[in-house]
């Protein structure tokens, strides 16, 4: 096969158990987002738009819906003759079979795949962040710094810093220290989980790590600290656009809300395209008595009631006199008449019967799992995973 400069590997195998019932049947990267997207659309579109056309997607947990969605990669322009998108599940060898034991192990087990393309650099991404970013600029900086590895970083509020890998750098961005989820964060520079490595070096570290029985085979916990110990040239690449880890119900809800308002925090309509599979549905229909503001509405929806500050996916029905506020309604859920929904995430194909009321008392986000039927009787039912 053709030698390529930079290949991307997207870690999409995690269960995302903090998303509760939203990931009972599907992998986290397949969770719907923003009216017509799924989370994995973001790293894949970023790759396509950055000119990276060889992408491995590492899957493990409940991949059927994810695999079906990924298809041939055509959605992201990644159905290429040379390269393109490859789904990389765990597999059996002559001597047996291994599941992916950690992020580093997943890449280690696919060294053969990477070697096929003999890349100079490998870009490691995760499948659960919402952002648009041109990786080619990061690669440029990596080359200019003559770095061995470059980590994407973003400033986070000091109080949240202990949830992330936190770095200390010199004025040129060279990384001096890296602490995974420190109790006392020394800075507010957090790792975005985006790494560029010189492949030869990474391969060496992966092989070494694979025989280290004490390792948990994780980039943040094992590979990066070991590289720092060995004085490898590690640089940071600062990103100051919108970036959000949607690993929890609250953050997933917030990220959806960030798309709304007259000037949204995250504007999907900016020049950078986020690709996603477009269903064959007609434009949505707004009924004669509907009222809609500060919302996103996708194709095939029928809105007869009121929608405010909400994200409505394809094929959703909202009946007359119903009111949807501060909520996310995922594809093909049907909201009958006279329903009130406030601050909720309704997963796909739910049916909310007439006169139901879905809102919490304590201000937390309510989640209704896929295919649920909610009647006025069980309507206080709170399902946060």
């Amino acid at each position: 096969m053709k030698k390529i400069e930079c290949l991307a590997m997207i870690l999409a195998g995690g269960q995302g158990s903090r998303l509760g019932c939203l990931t009972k049947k599907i992998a986290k990267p397949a969770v719907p987002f923003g009216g017509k997207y799924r989370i994995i659309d973001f790293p894949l579109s970023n790759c396509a738009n950055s000119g990276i056309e060889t992408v491995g997607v590492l899957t493990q947990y409940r991949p059927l819906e994810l695999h079906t969605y990924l298809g041939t990669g055509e959605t992201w322009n990644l159905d290429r003759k040379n390269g393109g998108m490859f789904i990389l599940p765990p597999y059996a060898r002559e001597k047996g079979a291994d599941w992916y034991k950690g992020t580093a192990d997943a890449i280690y087990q696919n060294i053969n795949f990477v070697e096929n393309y003999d890349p100079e650099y490998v870009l490691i991404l995760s499948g659960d962040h919402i952002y648009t970013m041109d990786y080619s600029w990061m690669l440029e900086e990596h080359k200019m710094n003559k770095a061995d590895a470059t980590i994407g970083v973003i400033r986070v509020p000091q109080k949240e810093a202990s949830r992330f890998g936190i770095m200390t750098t010199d004025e040129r961005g060279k990384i001096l220290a890296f602490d995974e989820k420190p109790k006392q964060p020394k800075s507010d520079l957090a790792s975005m989980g985006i790494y560029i490595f010189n492949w030869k070096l990474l391969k060496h570290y992966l092989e070494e790590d694979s025989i280290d029985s004490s390792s948990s085979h994780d980039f943040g916990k094992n590979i990066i600290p070991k590289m720092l110990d060995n004085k490898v040239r590690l640089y940071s690449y600062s990103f100051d656009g919108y970036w959000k880890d949607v690993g929890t119900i609250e953050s997933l809800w917030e990220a959806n809300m960030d798309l709304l308002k007259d000037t949204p925090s995250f504007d999907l309509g900016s020049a950078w395209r986020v690709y996603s599979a477009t269903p064959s549905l007609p434009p949505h229909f707004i009924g004669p008595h509907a009222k809609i503001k500060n919302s996103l509405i996708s194709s095939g929806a029928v809105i007869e009631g009121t929608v405010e500050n909400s994200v409505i996916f394809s094929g959703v029905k909202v009946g007359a006199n119903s009111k949807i506020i501060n909520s996310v309604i995922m594809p093909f859920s049907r909201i009958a008449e006279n329903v009130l929904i406030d601050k909720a995430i309704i997963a796909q194909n739910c049916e909310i019967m007439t006169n139901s009321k879905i809102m919490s008392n304590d201000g937390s986000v309510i989640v209704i799992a896929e295919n649920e039927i909610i009647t006025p009787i069980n309507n206080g039912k709170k399902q946060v995973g």
Partner: protein
Amino acid sequence: MNRVIGLINLEEDRQLIKEITTDRPIATVPFAGRYRLIDFILSNMVNSGIINVGILLPQKFGSVLDHIRSGKDWDLARRHEGLFYLPPVCAKNDSASCELSTFYKNIDFMKKSTQDYVLLSGGHTVFNMNFNNALRFHQNTNSDITIIYHKATHESSAPCTVLQCKENGLITDIANHSASYNDANISMGIYLMSRKTFIDIVEYAYERGGCDFLLDGIMRLHNKYNVYGYNYSGYVSTINSIHDYYKTNMDLLNPQIWQELFMDNSLIYTRTKNDIPAQYKSKAKVQNSLIANGCIIEGTVSNSILFRDVKIAKGAEIKNSIIMQGCTINEDALVENVICDKSVTISPQKWLKGAINYPFIVEKNTVI
């Protein structure tokens, strides 16, 4: 239905609808906020199980290739069979090409085909129909040619083809360019026949100087063949004029028709493009309208159809209008009873107003 080859003829009398067909055949006129008219017949064929579809290109075929490309969006991009194009054959003397000569020039292809039946149709009718019942009807009668028709629901002086049928469906008379009356059997211009019959008619009619499949083929040979009519009872609208076009779009604001065409039956496919959900801002007021993805709405919209990527600025008001892809309606503009073709810009505070039965048409790329 994989025993049927579909043929879509895009030659047409373009005089009928000229304002929005300067650069394209009727079949690729944008419709219903997202589609082109040809999407209906193509999707109907595919949803009926037809996997081999030929498109007779008109002279101005650029927009057809651009829209349909490999047929992938209709699942017709196949290594074998799938979509194929029949280029127009320029007649020597006049500039208009002629469907029979195109069929005749490509008759070898039809002869080599392995399918048993041919379903021939035009490309500018709006309907969602599965052809399997019509095929069963064709097989169960001793029909040589089955013409699919629908019942007229109102009188009209616009010319159409009216069929006289016996109770069993046998057609006794075909009147081309007739006026229509209530309950008349209006041909939908869709013909089902065996491949052999199709080839026989094309050869016979072309070799005798014919040009039109219906006039010079079926009607001249009416005595030789058993011609049956099959009644389709769903929603049907054939677009032959700006009036048809405007009215049919407005029909979609009837939820029953919208449901029947797009949601209840098989899906209507179209070229997929990347877009984002429609954005409603804080001052948006939208009622009784179809809104496509990619729209950004800050103003007021009622009884209208907005195609992809239309921007309605603050204070702007759209009523009873069809606004095609990429239009921008600026602050405080008023647009009523108007059809805006693609990428029209209406400047702030401009007022445009047509009549409800005579909409104002704004050409592609115009800035007003």
